[in-house]
């Protein structure tokens, strides 16, 4: 029989106990209490069984920033295994379009064919949303189709600029096309691509100023490129994110008063804005056992914004703060940062990652149903 049958004598855990369980302690040389314990049977008499209502009531998202290509938000009340699944999917499993094959007809520049091809592959592109999401599909087999392959060309030759003064030393002025940039790549729509990728929706590099190669007069690059959909687990050029990471919310607990010059020194141990200085009020100073007796009007250290902390542990190196501060991190508070390379919007990417995880589970569910037993 499962041991989670509720015991009559069980006391619900106190607020302090819940906070203790939810905090990863960061000590001078060690980290402690690192493992989640919210499983049935871990604490006698407590019910930790999963229910979607319980999850829903404990779950919360807060947005900190939502730029097109950089979103930052907190997921609170979720386990690391799930937050990590979202992060991993963001990096490795959301399909994007990137250059996969390069056919070089002529390359007399100093950059070698294979290096040039690799550089081209890493350039992020953007294009019409509808076309990228719903029209394009993964390439299967050898033959290229309008729905799985996008063709690009790059044809540049460096020539002498006859208008420039003969003493000109800047190659950009003395020659035409001395630098080859991503904006020199041209897109040729094939078949139905015309409908999806024309005008503003054309396939173009996200950043037109990426330098591809440098040339001198009479050098030339002539090549065509073929783009396919792919995923980051195959090659990182297919990853839709530049970075997708999370960190746990830092906690700083001042357990004994830090007053006066020490308070200033304490604040200097942290990044700006994490620790504030407040005057000790008369009321606090009058309270016996508070540690503030007779310090009315002096400055004390208070925690203002622990989210900005980098958890450097600097404050633990100083003797005067020993036993006065406890650093930690909240186990179930994930501060995500999703930086897109440009093909997707960052907030859209996270939703896509959640969708992808659901899809994977759905597929596996069918697989389990079909499993031979």
């Amino acid at each position, binding site marked *: 029989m*499962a041991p*989670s049958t509720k015991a009559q004598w069980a006391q619900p855990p106190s607020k302090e106990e819940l906070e203790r369980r939810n905090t990863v302690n960061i000590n001078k040389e060690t980290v402690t209490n690192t493992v989640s314990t919210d499983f049935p049977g871990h604490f006698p008499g407590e019910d930790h069984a*999963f229910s979607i209502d319980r999850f829903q009531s404990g779950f919360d998202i807060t947005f900190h920033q939502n730029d097109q290509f950089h979103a930052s938000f907190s997921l609170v009340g979720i386990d690391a*295994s799930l937050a*990590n699944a979202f992060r991993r999917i963001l990096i490795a499993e959301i399909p994007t379009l990137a250059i996969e094959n390069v056919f070089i007809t002529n390359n007399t520049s100093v950059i070698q064919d294979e290096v040039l091809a690799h550089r081209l592959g890493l350039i992020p592109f953007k294009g019409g949303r509808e076309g990228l999401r719903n029209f394009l599909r993964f390439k299967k087999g050898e033959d290229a189709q309008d729905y799985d392959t996008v063709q690009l060309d790059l044809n540049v030759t460096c020539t002498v600029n006859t208008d420039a003064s003969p003493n000109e030393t800047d190659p950009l002025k003395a020659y035409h096309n001395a630098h080859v940039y991503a904006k020199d790549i041209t897109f040729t729509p094939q078949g139905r691509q015309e409908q999806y990728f024309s005008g503003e929706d054309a396939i173009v590099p996200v950043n037109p100023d990426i330098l591809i190669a440098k040339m001198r007069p009479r050098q030339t690059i002539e090549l065509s490129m073929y783009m396919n959909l792919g995923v980051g687990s195959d090659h990182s050029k297919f990853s839709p994110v530049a970075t997708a990471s999370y960190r746990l919310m830092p906690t700083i607990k001042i357990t004994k008063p830090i007053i006066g010059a020490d308070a200033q020194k304490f604040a200097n141990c942290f990044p700006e804005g994490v620790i504030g200085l407040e005057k000790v009020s008369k009321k606090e100073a009058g309270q016996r056992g508070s540690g503030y007796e007779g310090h009315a009007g002096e400055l004390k250290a208070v925690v203002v914004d622990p989210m900005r902390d980098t958890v450097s542990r600097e404050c633990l190196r100083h003797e005067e703060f020993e036993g006065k501060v406890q650093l930690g991190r909240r186990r179930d508070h994930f501060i995500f940062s999703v930086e897109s390379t440009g093909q997707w919007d960052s907030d859209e990417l996270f939703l896509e990652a959640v969708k992808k995880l*659901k899809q994977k589970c759905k597929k596996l*569910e069918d*697989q389990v149903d*079909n*499993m031979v037993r």
Partner: protein
Amino acid sequence: MPGRTKKDEPTAQDTNMEDAPPSAQPEAEEVDTEDQEEVQEEEEIEPQRVRILPGSTDTAASFEFVDEGHTVGNALRYIIMKNPDVEFCAYSIPHPSEPKMNLRIQTYDGLAVDALKKGLADLQDICDVVTDEFTTKKDQFNAEHGIVR
């Protein structure tokens, strides 16, 4: 009781051996002409990627997932461990150069397969909750900060 594994209803009648398919897989439609087979291939029949490893019993089973990794493995392990009927659950990737993930489930009560099914269903529910919450909070934030896209 909330959170408990759903138990499959016991099957009412025995199946005649001739009628019983070799697996629970939906039977392929009876088209065997070669050109039609090619058309079928394009429709993508997913290969079977999950199997029970030998030595498994009803309440203690190991499953092998092909082409799955830590992403699903760890999430599934967590959610299955949250099931009070489960005594033990763990996953491993036996060798990094094989695209395989093994999942072990031992239950106090009920079938290991049912615990796995419940885990997969719970994960999908979580995804729905996360999507809803994310969308509402995003819209709220965008409205407050005048972000229009």
